[in-house]
Protein backbone atom coordinates (compact mmCIF):
# COMPACT_ATOMS: atom_id res chain seq x y z
CA UNK A 1 0.00 0.00 0.00
CA UNK A 2 1.21 3.47 -0.83
CA UNK A 3 1.18 5.19 2.55
CA UNK A 4 1.72 8.73 1.26
CA UNK A 5 -2.06 8.89 1.02
CA UNK A 6 -3.44 9.93 4.44
CA UNK A 7 -6.28 7.40 3.98
CA UNK A 8 -3.69 4.59 4.23
CA UNK A 9 -3.62 5.33 7.96
CA UNK A 10 -7.24 4.18 8.24
CA UNK A 11 -6.57 1.03 6.24
CA UNK A 12 -3.46 0.14 8.29
CA UNK A 13 -5.65 0.39 11.42
CA UNK A 14 -8.24 -1.72 9.62
CA UNK A 15 -5.78 -4.54 8.89
CA UNK A 16 -4.57 -4.42 12.48
CA UNK A 17 -7.99 -4.20 14.22
CA UNK A 18 -10.78 -4.93 11.70
CA UNK A 19 -13.52 -5.34 14.31
CA UNK A 20 -12.72 -2.16 16.26
CA UNK A 21 -15.36 0.55 16.05
CA UNK A 22 -14.16 3.32 13.73
CA UNK A 23 -17.20 5.58 13.98
CA UNK A 24 -20.24 6.19 16.15
CA UNK A 25 -22.69 8.60 14.57
CA UNK A 26 -26.45 9.14 14.87
CA UNK A 27 -26.79 6.20 17.31
CA UNK A 28 -25.16 3.75 14.87
CA UNK A 29 -21.73 2.13 15.02
CA UNK A 30 -19.42 1.20 12.13
CA UNK A 31 -16.41 -1.10 12.41
CA UNK A 32 -13.12 -0.45 10.61
CA UNK A 33 -13.96 -3.45 8.43
CA UNK A 34 -17.37 -2.21 7.30
CA UNK A 35 -16.60 1.52 7.04
CA UNK A 36 -13.48 0.69 5.03
CA UNK A 37 -15.48 -1.55 2.68
CA UNK A 38 -18.16 1.10 2.09
CA UNK A 39 -15.51 3.78 1.57
CA UNK A 40 -13.70 1.73 -1.09
CA UNK A 41 -16.99 1.18 -2.95
CA UNK A 42 -17.81 4.88 -2.85
CA UNK A 43 -14.20 5.73 -3.83
CA UNK A 44 -14.58 3.43 -6.84
CA UNK A 45 -17.75 5.24 -7.91
CA UNK A 46 -15.94 8.60 -7.56
CA UNK A 47 -13.17 7.31 -9.81
CA UNK A 48 -15.53 5.65 -12.30
CA UNK A 49 -17.59 8.81 -12.81
CA UNK A 50 -16.08 10.67 -15.67
CA UNK A 51 -15.35 14.03 -14.09
CA UNK A 52 -12.29 16.29 -14.09
CA UNK A 53 -13.28 17.66 -10.70
CA UNK A 54 -10.24 17.40 -8.43
CA UNK A 55 -12.41 18.49 -5.50
CA UNK A 56 -15.43 16.65 -4.19
CA UNK A 57 -17.77 18.81 -2.12
CA UNK A 58 -19.23 17.48 1.11
CA UNK A 59 -22.84 18.53 1.50
CA UNK A 60 -23.05 16.41 4.62
CA UNK A 61 -22.81 17.56 8.21
CA UNK A 62 -22.45 15.41 11.33
CA UNK A 63 -24.00 12.51 9.42
CA UNK A 64 -22.70 9.08 8.36
CA UNK A 65 -22.31 10.40 4.80
CA UNK A 66 -19.94 13.13 6.06
CA UNK A 67 -17.43 10.69 7.58
CA UNK A 68 -17.84 8.03 4.90
CA UNK A 69 -17.40 10.82 2.32
CA UNK A 70 -14.15 12.10 3.84
CA UNK A 71 -12.67 8.58 3.90
CA UNK A 72 -13.91 7.71 0.39
CA UNK A 73 -12.81 10.95 -1.26
CA UNK A 74 -9.35 10.67 0.30
CA UNK A 75 -9.06 6.97 -0.63
CA UNK A 76 -9.99 7.87 -4.21
CA UNK A 77 -7.05 10.28 -4.33
CA UNK A 78 -9.35 13.30 -4.62
CA UNK A 79 -9.59 16.28 -2.27
CA UNK A 80 -12.59 17.03 -0.06
CA UNK A 81 -14.20 20.41 0.32
CA UNK A 82 -16.54 20.52 3.34
CA UNK A 83 -19.60 22.79 3.40
CA UNK A 84 -21.68 23.89 6.36
CA UNK A 85 -25.49 24.07 6.27
CA UNK A 86 -25.21 27.22 8.41
CA UNK A 87 -23.40 29.07 5.60
CA UNK A 88 -25.50 31.38 3.44
CA UNK A 89 -26.03 30.41 -0.20
CA UNK A 90 -23.82 33.26 -1.47
CA UNK A 91 -20.81 31.98 0.46
CA UNK A 92 -21.42 28.43 -0.74
CA UNK A 93 -21.65 29.67 -4.32
CA UNK A 94 -18.32 31.52 -4.04
CA UNK A 95 -16.66 28.42 -2.57
CA UNK A 96 -17.91 26.35 -5.51
CA UNK A 97 -16.85 29.00 -8.01
CA UNK A 98 -13.32 29.44 -6.60
CA UNK A 99 -12.66 25.69 -6.36
CA UNK A 100 -14.37 24.73 -9.62
CA UNK A 101 -15.98 21.83 -7.75
CA UNK A 102 -18.79 20.07 -9.68
CA UNK A 103 -19.19 16.78 -7.79
CA UNK A 104 -20.73 16.45 -4.33
CA UNK A 105 -21.56 13.86 -1.70
CA UNK A 106 -24.79 14.83 0.02
CA UNK A 107 -27.11 13.91 2.86
CA UNK A 108 -30.50 15.19 3.89
CA UNK A 109 -29.49 18.01 6.26
CA UNK A 110 -28.39 19.84 3.07
CA UNK A 111 -31.43 19.23 0.83
CA UNK A 112 -33.01 22.67 1.37
CA UNK A 113 -29.70 24.35 0.45
CA UNK A 114 -29.14 22.11 -2.57
CA UNK A 115 -32.64 22.92 -3.86
CA UNK A 116 -31.83 26.62 -3.66
CA UNK A 117 -28.45 26.11 -5.28
CA UNK A 118 -29.96 24.18 -8.20
CA UNK A 119 -32.59 26.86 -8.77
CA UNK A 120 -29.83 29.44 -9.07
CA UNK A 121 -27.44 27.79 -11.51
CA UNK A 122 -27.08 26.47 -15.03
CA UNK A 123 -24.15 24.27 -14.05
CA UNK A 124 -24.58 20.48 -14.43
CA UNK A 125 -23.60 19.16 -11.03
CA UNK A 126 -23.13 15.55 -9.97
CA UNK A 127 -24.61 14.49 -6.62
CA UNK A 128 -24.02 11.23 -4.77
CA UNK A 129 -26.40 10.25 -1.96
CA UNK A 130 -24.80 7.36 0.01
CA UNK A 131 -27.72 7.14 2.44
CA UNK A 132 -30.57 7.10 -0.11
CA UNK A 133 -32.06 4.05 -1.87
CA UNK A 134 -33.67 6.27 -4.51
CA UNK A 135 -32.76 9.77 -5.64
CA UNK A 136 -34.39 12.49 -3.49
CA UNK A 137 -36.67 15.03 -5.17
CA UNK A 138 -34.60 18.17 -4.89
CA UNK A 139 -34.69 19.36 -8.49
CA UNK A 140 -34.03 17.75 -11.84
CA UNK A 141 -31.07 19.58 -13.28
CA UNK A 142 -28.40 17.34 -11.82
CA UNK A 143 -26.92 13.92 -12.38
CA UNK A 144 -27.43 11.73 -9.32
CA UNK A 145 -26.24 8.46 -7.83
CA UNK A 146 -27.59 6.67 -4.76
CA UNK A 147 -26.84 3.65 -2.57
CA UNK A 148 -27.54 1.04 -5.25
CA UNK A 149 -25.11 2.72 -7.67
CA UNK A 150 -22.44 2.57 -4.98
CA UNK A 151 -23.19 -1.10 -4.19
CA UNK A 152 -22.94 -2.22 -7.81
CA UNK A 153 -19.57 -0.87 -8.84
CA UNK A 154 -17.95 -3.18 -11.39
CA UNK A 155 -14.35 -2.48 -10.38
CA UNK A 156 -14.00 -1.93 -6.66
CA UNK A 157 -10.73 -0.54 -5.34
CA UNK A 158 -8.91 -2.90 -2.99
CA UNK A 159 -6.64 -0.24 -1.56
CA UNK A 160 -6.24 3.52 -1.51
CA UNK A 161 -5.15 5.33 -4.68
CA UNK A 162 -1.52 6.31 -5.10
CA UNK A 163 -1.03 10.03 -4.87
CA UNK A 164 1.88 12.45 -4.86
CA UNK A 165 2.83 13.95 -1.46
CA UNK A 166 1.93 17.46 -2.66
CA UNK A 167 -1.55 16.44 -3.84
CA UNK A 168 -4.34 18.22 -2.00
CA UNK A 169 -6.22 16.25 0.67
CA UNK A 170 -8.68 18.96 1.73
CA UNK A 171 -9.62 22.52 0.92
CA UNK A 172 -10.98 24.88 3.57
CA UNK A 173 -12.12 28.47 3.22
CA UNK A 174 -11.43 31.48 5.38
CA UNK A 175 -12.95 34.92 5.05
CA UNK A 176 -11.30 37.42 2.73
CA UNK A 177 -11.20 41.19 2.97
CA UNK A 178 -12.99 41.87 -0.30
CA UNK A 179 -15.89 39.64 0.59
CA UNK A 180 -14.47 36.71 -1.39
CA UNK A 181 -13.45 33.77 0.80
CA UNK A 182 -9.89 32.42 0.46
CA UNK A 183 -9.36 28.71 -0.29
CA UNK A 184 -6.59 27.04 1.71
CA UNK A 185 -5.40 23.74 0.18
CA UNK A 186 -3.74 21.27 2.56
CA UNK A 187 -1.64 18.50 1.02
CA UNK A 188 -1.23 14.88 2.10
CA UNK A 189 2.33 15.80 3.08
CA UNK A 190 1.11 18.74 5.23
CA UNK A 191 -1.41 16.55 7.04
CA UNK A 192 0.91 13.53 7.44
CA UNK A 193 3.57 15.79 8.98
CA UNK A 194 1.03 17.08 11.49
CA UNK A 195 -0.31 13.63 12.35
CA UNK A 196 3.17 12.13 12.78
CA UNK A 197 4.11 14.91 15.16
CA UNK A 198 1.06 14.86 17.44
CA UNK A 199 0.76 11.06 17.45
CA UNK A 200 4.36 10.76 18.67
CA UNK A 201 4.01 13.46 21.32
CA UNK A 202 0.51 12.67 22.61
CA UNK A 203 -0.10 9.03 21.65
CA UNK A 204 -3.68 7.90 21.11
CA UNK A 205 -4.32 4.16 21.50
CA UNK A 206 -6.89 1.79 20.01
CA UNK A 207 -8.98 1.71 23.19
CA UNK A 208 -9.43 5.49 23.09
CA UNK A 209 -12.84 7.02 22.43
CA UNK A 210 -12.40 10.44 20.85
CA UNK A 211 -14.77 13.38 20.55
CA UNK A 212 -15.75 14.87 17.21
CA UNK A 213 -17.15 18.24 18.21
CA UNK A 214 -15.73 20.62 15.58
CA UNK A 215 -17.58 21.46 12.39
CA UNK A 216 -15.85 19.91 9.38
CA UNK A 217 -15.47 23.43 7.93
CA UNK A 218 -13.06 24.15 10.80
CA UNK A 219 -9.74 22.29 10.63
CA UNK A 220 -9.47 20.92 14.21
CA UNK A 221 -12.09 18.42 12.96
CA UNK A 222 -9.34 16.98 10.75
CA UNK A 223 -7.34 16.32 13.93
CA UNK A 224 -10.35 14.52 15.47
CA UNK A 225 -10.89 12.32 12.44
CA UNK A 226 -7.37 11.43 11.33
CA UNK A 227 -5.71 11.14 14.76
CA UNK A 228 -8.47 8.72 15.78
CA UNK A 229 -8.34 6.66 12.60
CA UNK A 230 -4.52 6.52 12.65
CA UNK A 231 -4.75 4.84 16.06
CA UNK A 232 -7.58 2.35 15.32
CA UNK A 233 -9.55 4.22 18.01
CA UNK A 234 -13.26 5.22 17.97
CA UNK A 235 -14.52 8.54 16.62
CA UNK A 236 -17.71 9.70 18.42
CA UNK A 237 -19.61 12.35 16.46
CA UNK A 238 -21.50 14.69 18.76
CA UNK A 239 -25.06 15.45 17.67
CA UNK A 240 -25.94 19.12 17.18
CA UNK A 241 -28.22 19.13 20.24
CA UNK A 242 -25.43 18.05 22.61
CA UNK A 243 -22.78 20.32 21.15
CA UNK A 244 -23.18 23.21 23.53
CA UNK A 245 -23.55 21.16 26.71
CA UNK A 246 -21.76 17.90 25.99
CA UNK A 247 -21.24 16.69 29.60
CA UNK A 248 -23.85 13.96 29.39
CA UNK A 249 -22.50 12.84 26.02
CA UNK A 250 -18.92 12.70 27.31
CA UNK A 251 -19.91 10.39 30.16
CA UNK A 252 -22.52 8.27 28.38
CA UNK A 253 -20.13 7.62 25.50
CA UNK A 254 -17.25 7.02 27.94
CA UNK A 255 -15.02 9.41 25.99
CA UNK A 256 -11.33 9.36 26.88
CA UNK A 257 -10.30 12.29 24.66
CA UNK A 258 -12.08 15.62 24.52
CA UNK A 259 -11.24 18.38 22.02
CA UNK A 260 -13.23 21.61 21.57
CA UNK A 261 -13.08 25.39 21.64
CA UNK A 262 -12.82 26.87 25.16
CA UNK A 263 -16.30 28.45 24.74
CA UNK A 264 -17.89 25.06 25.36
CA UNK A 265 -15.99 24.74 28.66
CA UNK A 266 -17.09 28.27 29.54
CA UNK A 267 -20.71 27.35 28.84
CA UNK A 268 -20.49 24.25 31.05
CA UNK A 269 -19.04 26.36 33.83
CA UNK A 270 -21.68 29.06 33.40
CA UNK A 271 -24.47 26.50 33.76
CA UNK A 272 -22.67 24.95 36.77
CA UNK A 273 -22.34 21.63 35.00
CA UNK A 274 -18.53 21.76 35.22
CA UNK A 275 -18.03 20.29 38.71
CA UNK A 276 -14.92 18.63 40.20
CA UNK A 277 -14.31 15.11 38.91
CA UNK A 278 -17.32 15.09 36.58
CA UNK A 279 -15.12 13.68 33.77
CA UNK A 280 -13.05 10.96 35.49
CA UNK A 281 -12.37 8.99 32.28
CA UNK A 282 -10.77 11.74 30.18
CA UNK A 283 -7.08 11.13 29.36
CA UNK A 284 -6.63 14.21 27.22
CA UNK A 285 -8.54 17.49 27.36
CA UNK A 286 -7.59 19.53 24.33
CA UNK A 287 -8.51 23.12 23.51
CA UNK A 288 -7.79 25.40 20.57
CA UNK A 289 -9.48 27.86 18.25
CA UNK A 290 -9.60 30.77 20.69
CA UNK A 291 -7.83 32.06 23.79
CA UNK A 292 -7.98 29.69 26.78
CA UNK A 293 -8.54 31.63 30.02
CA UNK A 294 -6.28 30.41 32.86
CA UNK A 295 -9.09 30.20 35.41
CA UNK A 296 -11.21 28.16 33.01
CA UNK A 297 -8.32 25.76 32.36
CA UNK A 298 -7.92 25.33 36.14
CA UNK A 299 -11.64 24.56 36.56
CA UNK A 300 -11.58 22.08 33.67
CA UNK A 301 -8.52 20.37 35.13
CA UNK A 302 -10.46 19.85 38.39
CA UNK A 303 -13.40 18.45 36.43
CA UNK A 304 -11.13 16.05 34.51
CA UNK A 305 -8.37 15.38 37.05
CA UNK A 306 -6.73 12.44 35.23
CA UNK A 307 -6.39 14.24 31.92
CA UNK A 308 -3.49 16.09 30.37
CA UNK A 309 -4.82 19.49 29.40
CA UNK A 310 -3.32 20.67 26.12
CA UNK A 311 -3.70 24.14 24.65
CA UNK A 312 -3.02 24.14 20.91
CA UNK A 313 -2.69 27.07 18.51
CA UNK A 314 -2.47 27.17 14.74
CA UNK A 315 -3.82 28.92 11.65
CA UNK A 316 -5.54 26.76 9.01
CA UNK A 317 -2.69 27.66 6.59
CA UNK A 318 -0.21 25.68 8.72
CA UNK A 319 -2.40 22.58 9.07
CA UNK A 320 -4.47 22.53 12.26
CA UNK A 321 -1.99 23.32 15.06
CA UNK A 322 1.61 24.49 15.28
CA UNK A 323 2.22 25.21 18.98
CA UNK A 324 1.31 23.25 22.09
CA UNK A 325 1.27 23.94 25.80
CA UNK A 326 0.47 21.42 28.52
CA UNK A 327 -1.31 23.06 31.43
CA UNK A 328 0.27 22.37 34.79
CA UNK A 329 -2.28 23.29 37.44
CA UNK A 330 -1.04 25.36 40.36
CA UNK A 331 2.63 24.88 39.56
CA UNK A 332 3.89 27.65 37.31
CA UNK A 333 1.17 27.83 34.71
CA UNK A 334 2.14 30.39 32.14
CA UNK A 335 -0.40 32.99 31.24
CA UNK A 336 -0.65 36.57 30.07
CA UNK A 337 -3.73 38.64 30.96
CA UNK A 338 -5.37 35.43 32.25
CA UNK A 339 -4.82 33.72 28.88
CA UNK A 340 -2.84 30.45 28.85
CA UNK A 341 0.44 30.51 26.86
CA UNK A 342 0.48 29.10 23.34
CA UNK A 343 3.58 27.16 24.33
CA UNK A 344 6.37 26.21 21.94
CA UNK A 345 6.33 25.85 18.15
CA UNK A 346 6.45 22.17 17.07
CA UNK A 347 10.15 21.26 16.80
CA UNK A 348 9.52 19.99 13.27
CA UNK A 349 9.23 23.67 12.25
CA UNK A 350 11.23 26.90 12.21
CA UNK A 351 9.76 30.10 13.58
CA UNK A 352 10.64 33.76 14.03
CA UNK A 353 9.03 36.68 15.80
CA UNK A 354 9.51 39.68 13.53
CA UNK A 355 8.75 43.38 13.13
CA UNK A 356 7.00 44.92 10.11
CA UNK A 357 10.22 44.69 8.10
CA UNK A 358 10.52 40.97 8.90
CA UNK A 359 13.51 41.70 11.15
CA UNK A 360 13.83 39.22 14.00
CA UNK A 361 12.99 40.60 17.48
CA UNK A 362 14.38 39.79 20.92
CA UNK A 363 12.92 37.91 23.89
CA UNK A 364 9.88 39.70 25.40
CA UNK A 365 9.45 42.00 22.37
CA UNK A 366 6.05 41.85 20.68
CA UNK A 367 6.00 40.98 16.98
CA UNK A 368 4.39 38.85 14.30
CA UNK A 369 4.85 35.07 14.41
CA UNK A 370 6.09 33.59 11.13
CA UNK A 371 6.52 29.86 10.50
CA UNK A 372 8.36 27.67 8.00
CA UNK A 373 8.19 23.90 7.61
CA UNK A 374 6.34 20.85 6.28
CA UNK A 375 2.89 21.85 7.57
CA UNK A 376 2.84 25.16 5.68
CA UNK A 377 0.25 25.14 2.85
CA UNK A 378 1.34 25.82 -0.72
CA UNK A 379 -0.84 28.96 -0.71
CA UNK A 380 -4.40 30.13 -1.40
CA UNK A 381 -5.89 28.79 -4.59
CA UNK A 382 -6.24 31.28 -7.45
CA UNK A 383 -5.16 34.20 -5.28
CA UNK A 384 -1.61 35.36 -6.20
CA UNK A 385 -2.15 38.73 -4.52
CA UNK A 386 -2.93 37.28 -1.10
CA UNK A 387 -0.17 34.69 -1.48
CA UNK A 388 2.41 37.42 -2.00
CA UNK A 389 1.27 39.06 1.25
CA UNK A 390 1.05 35.96 3.42
CA UNK A 391 3.66 33.49 2.10
CA UNK A 392 7.03 35.23 1.99
CA UNK A 393 10.51 34.06 1.06
CA UNK A 394 13.30 34.55 3.55
CA UNK A 395 16.72 32.82 3.78
CA UNK A 396 15.71 30.63 0.84
CA UNK A 397 12.63 29.26 2.64
CA UNK A 398 8.91 29.98 2.46
CA UNK A 399 7.42 31.44 5.64
CA UNK A 400 3.76 31.89 6.48
CA UNK A 401 2.94 35.19 8.12
CA UNK A 402 0.35 34.33 10.77
CA UNK A 403 -0.76 37.94 11.33
CA UNK A 404 -0.75 37.07 15.04
CA UNK A 405 1.18 39.26 17.44
CA UNK A 406 3.05 37.24 20.06
CA UNK A 407 5.99 37.47 22.42
CA UNK A 408 8.31 34.82 23.81
CA UNK A 409 9.77 34.55 27.31
CA UNK A 410 13.31 33.47 28.18
CA UNK A 411 12.14 29.85 28.64
CA UNK A 412 10.76 29.65 25.12
CA UNK A 413 7.04 29.95 25.86
CA UNK A 414 5.07 31.97 23.34
CA UNK A 415 2.21 34.22 24.45
CA UNK A 416 -0.60 35.53 22.29
CA UNK A 417 -0.91 39.31 22.26
CA UNK A 418 -3.43 40.10 19.51
CA UNK A 419 -4.13 40.27 15.78
CA UNK A 420 -1.93 42.44 13.61
CA UNK A 421 -4.94 43.59 11.56
CA UNK A 422 -8.52 43.77 12.63
CA UNK A 423 -9.17 40.10 12.22
CA UNK A 424 -10.57 38.45 15.34
CA UNK A 425 -11.96 35.10 16.34
CA UNK A 426 -15.61 34.69 17.06
CA UNK A 427 -16.77 31.28 18.23
CA UNK A 428 -13.54 29.86 16.87
CA UNK A 429 -14.03 31.28 13.37
CA UNK A 430 -11.60 33.81 11.99
CA UNK A 431 -13.45 36.95 11.09
CA UNK A 432 -12.08 39.97 9.33
CA UNK A 433 -13.78 43.17 10.40
CA UNK A 434 -13.13 44.56 6.92
CA UNK A 435 -15.38 41.91 5.36
CA UNK A 436 -18.28 42.80 7.64
CA UNK A 437 -17.69 46.51 7.05
CA UNK A 438 -17.65 45.96 3.30
CA UNK A 439 -20.97 44.09 3.32
CA UNK A 440 -22.81 46.36 5.77
CA UNK A 441 -21.60 49.54 4.06
CA UNK A 442 -22.75 48.21 0.70
CA UNK A 443 -26.25 47.23 1.77
CA UNK A 444 -26.89 50.26 4.00
CA UNK A 445 -25.37 52.72 1.50
CA UNK A 446 -23.86 54.54 4.49
CA UNK A 447 -20.75 56.76 4.04
CA UNK A 448 -18.70 54.51 6.27
CA UNK A 449 -19.03 51.38 8.36
CA UNK A 450 -16.81 50.24 11.21
CA UNK A 451 -17.20 46.85 12.84
CA UNK A 452 -15.95 46.44 16.39
CA UNK A 453 -15.63 43.12 18.19
CA UNK A 454 -17.48 43.72 21.46
CA UNK A 455 -17.67 42.79 24.24
CA UNK A 456 -14.32 41.09 24.65
CA UNK A 457 -13.99 38.89 27.71
CA UNK A 458 -10.74 37.04 28.39
CA UNK A 459 -9.62 37.95 24.86
CA UNK A 460 -12.63 36.20 23.30
CA UNK A 461 -14.85 38.39 21.17
CA UNK A 462 -18.46 37.67 22.04
CA UNK A 463 -20.07 39.57 19.20
CA UNK A 464 -19.76 42.38 16.70
CA UNK A 465 -21.20 45.88 16.89
CA UNK A 466 -21.26 47.85 13.68
CA UNK A 467 -21.16 51.65 13.51
CA UNK A 468 -22.56 53.39 10.44
CA UNK A 469 -21.70 56.93 9.44
CA UNK A 470 -24.65 58.55 7.70
CA UNK A 471 -27.14 61.38 8.03
CA UNK A 472 -29.78 59.38 6.18
CA UNK A 473 -32.49 57.34 7.85
CA UNK A 474 -31.47 53.68 7.98
CA UNK A 475 -33.80 50.69 8.37
CA UNK A 476 -31.58 48.73 10.75
CA UNK A 477 -33.76 45.60 10.77
CA UNK A 478 -33.61 45.48 6.98
CA UNK A 479 -29.82 45.92 6.94
CA UNK A 480 -29.41 43.11 9.48
CA UNK A 481 -31.69 40.79 7.58
CA UNK A 482 -29.88 41.48 4.28
CA UNK A 483 -26.54 40.94 6.05
CA UNK A 484 -27.90 37.53 7.07
CA UNK A 485 -28.13 36.55 3.40
CA UNK A 486 -24.50 37.46 2.74
CA UNK A 487 -22.64 36.59 5.93
CA UNK A 488 -22.49 33.46 8.10
CA UNK A 489 -24.36 33.89 11.40
CA UNK A 490 -21.24 34.41 13.50
CA UNK A 491 -20.33 37.44 11.34
CA UNK A 492 -23.68 39.22 11.58
CA UNK A 493 -23.46 42.29 13.85
CA UNK A 494 -25.34 41.98 17.14
CA UNK A 495 -26.19 45.66 16.93
CA UNK A 496 -25.95 48.54 14.48
CA UNK A 497 -25.39 52.06 15.79
CA UNK A 498 -25.89 55.00 13.45
CA UNK A 499 -23.78 58.13 13.98
CA UNK A 500 -23.78 61.38 11.96
CA UNK A 501 -19.98 61.27 12.00
CA UNK A 502 -17.35 58.86 13.24
CA UNK A 503 -14.52 59.93 15.58
CA UNK A 504 -11.17 60.40 13.80
CA UNK A 505 -7.69 59.94 15.30
CA UNK A 506 -4.58 62.03 14.63
CA UNK A 507 -3.67 59.89 11.62
CA UNK A 508 -7.00 60.76 10.04
CA UNK A 509 -8.28 57.22 10.49
CA UNK A 510 -11.45 56.18 12.26
CA UNK A 511 -10.65 56.07 15.97
CA UNK A 512 -11.67 52.54 16.90
CA UNK A 513 -10.62 53.02 20.52
CA UNK A 514 -12.99 55.99 20.86
CA UNK A 515 -15.81 53.78 19.56
CA UNK A 516 -14.90 51.04 22.03
CA UNK A 517 -14.97 53.61 24.85
CA UNK A 518 -18.37 54.73 23.62
CA UNK A 519 -19.61 51.13 23.90
CA UNK A 520 -18.12 50.73 27.35
CA UNK A 521 -20.17 53.81 28.27
Amino acid at each position, binding site marked *: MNDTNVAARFFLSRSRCPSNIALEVEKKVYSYQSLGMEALKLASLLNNINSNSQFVGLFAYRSYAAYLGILAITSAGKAYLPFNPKFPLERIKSMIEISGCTMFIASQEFYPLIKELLQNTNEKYIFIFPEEKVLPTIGNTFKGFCQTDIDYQHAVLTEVKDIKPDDIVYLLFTSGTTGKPKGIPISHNNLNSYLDYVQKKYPVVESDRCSQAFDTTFDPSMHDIWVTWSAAATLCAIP*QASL*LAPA*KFINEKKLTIWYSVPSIAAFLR*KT*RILKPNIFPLLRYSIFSGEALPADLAADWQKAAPSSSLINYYGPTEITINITDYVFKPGVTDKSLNNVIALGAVFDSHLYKIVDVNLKQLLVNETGELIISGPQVSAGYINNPLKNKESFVELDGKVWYRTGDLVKIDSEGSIFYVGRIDHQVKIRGYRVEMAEIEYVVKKISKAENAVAIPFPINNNIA*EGIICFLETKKLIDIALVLSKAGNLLPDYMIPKEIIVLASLPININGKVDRNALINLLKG
Partner: protein
Amino acid sequence: MSSEELKQYVAKKIYSKAAELGEPMVEIPDDFDLTGSGIFDSMDFMDLLVSIEDKFSIEIDLSDADPDQFTKFAGFINAIVRK
Protein backbone atom coordinates in the same frame (compact mmCIF):
# COMPACT_ATOMS: atom_id res chain seq x y z
CA MET B 1 -40.39 33.33 40.29
CA SER B 2 -43.19 31.30 38.75
CA SER B 3 -42.96 29.21 35.63
CA GLU B 4 -45.30 31.65 33.88
CA GLU B 5 -43.19 34.68 34.88
CA LEU B 6 -40.05 33.07 33.53
CA LYS B 7 -41.82 31.97 30.36
CA GLN B 8 -43.00 35.53 29.72
CA TYR B 9 -39.51 36.86 30.32
CA VAL B 10 -37.80 34.40 27.97
CA ALA B 11 -40.50 34.83 25.32
CA LYS B 12 -40.00 38.60 25.38
CA LYS B 13 -36.27 38.14 24.74
CA ILE B 14 -36.94 35.85 21.78
CA TYR B 15 -39.59 38.14 20.27
CA SER B 16 -37.30 41.15 20.48
CA LYS B 17 -34.34 39.27 18.94
CA ALA B 18 -36.58 38.01 16.13
CA ALA B 19 -37.93 41.50 15.45
CA GLU B 20 -34.40 42.90 15.47
CA LEU B 21 -33.45 40.40 12.77
CA GLY B 22 -36.47 41.43 10.72
CA GLU B 23 -38.14 38.02 11.16
CA PRO B 24 -40.91 38.79 13.68
CA MET B 25 -42.53 35.78 15.37
CA VAL B 26 -46.14 35.50 16.55
CA GLU B 27 -45.80 32.37 18.61
CA ILE B 28 -42.89 30.44 20.11
CA PRO B 29 -43.20 26.68 19.72
CA ASP B 30 -42.23 24.53 22.73
CA ASP B 31 -39.36 22.99 20.78
CA PHE B 32 -37.92 26.37 19.66
CA ASP B 33 -34.13 25.88 19.66
CA LEU B 34 -32.40 28.37 21.95
CA THR B 35 -28.89 27.60 20.75
CA GLY B 36 -28.90 27.49 16.98
CA SER B 37 -32.22 28.44 15.43
CA GLY B 38 -30.94 31.27 13.27
CA ILE B 39 -32.79 33.64 15.58
CA PHE B 40 -31.25 32.59 18.86
CA ASP B 41 -27.67 31.31 18.94
CA SER B 42 -25.42 29.98 21.69
CA MET B 43 -24.15 33.46 22.56
CA ASP B 44 -27.72 34.73 22.95
CA PHE B 45 -28.38 31.72 25.17
CA MET B 46 -25.42 32.67 27.39
CA ASP B 47 -26.69 36.26 27.56
CA LEU B 48 -30.13 34.94 28.46
CA LEU B 49 -28.74 32.88 31.35
CA VAL B 50 -26.89 35.88 32.75
CA SER B 51 -29.91 38.15 32.44
CA ILE B 52 -32.22 35.61 34.13
CA GLU B 53 -29.77 35.23 37.01
CA ASP B 54 -29.67 39.01 37.46
CA LYS B 55 -33.37 39.60 36.99
CA PHE B 56 -34.63 36.86 39.32
CA SER B 57 -31.59 36.70 41.64
CA ILE B 58 -31.11 32.98 41.11
CA GLU B 59 -28.18 30.70 40.27
CA ILE B 60 -28.88 28.54 37.28
CA ASP B 61 -27.61 24.97 37.67
CA LEU B 62 -28.25 22.68 34.73
CA SER B 63 -26.01 19.83 35.88
CA ASP B 64 -28.87 17.33 36.12
CA ALA B 65 -30.80 18.59 33.12
CA ASP B 66 -30.89 16.89 29.73
CA PRO B 67 -29.23 19.03 27.03
CA ASP B 68 -31.74 17.78 24.44
CA GLN B 69 -34.42 19.38 26.61
CA PHE B 70 -32.89 22.49 28.17
CA THR B 71 -31.78 23.92 24.85
CA LYS B 72 -35.44 24.08 23.77
CA PHE B 73 -37.90 26.78 24.88
CA ALA B 74 -40.27 24.68 27.04
CA GLY B 75 -37.55 22.33 28.31
CA PHE B 76 -35.44 25.29 29.39
CA ILE B 77 -38.27 26.78 31.48
CA ASN B 78 -38.88 23.37 33.11
CA ALA B 79 -35.18 22.82 33.83
CA ILE B 80 -34.90 26.12 35.67
CA VAL B 81 -38.20 26.09 37.55
CA ARG B 82 -37.63 22.50 38.72
CA LYS B 83 -34.76 23.74 40.91
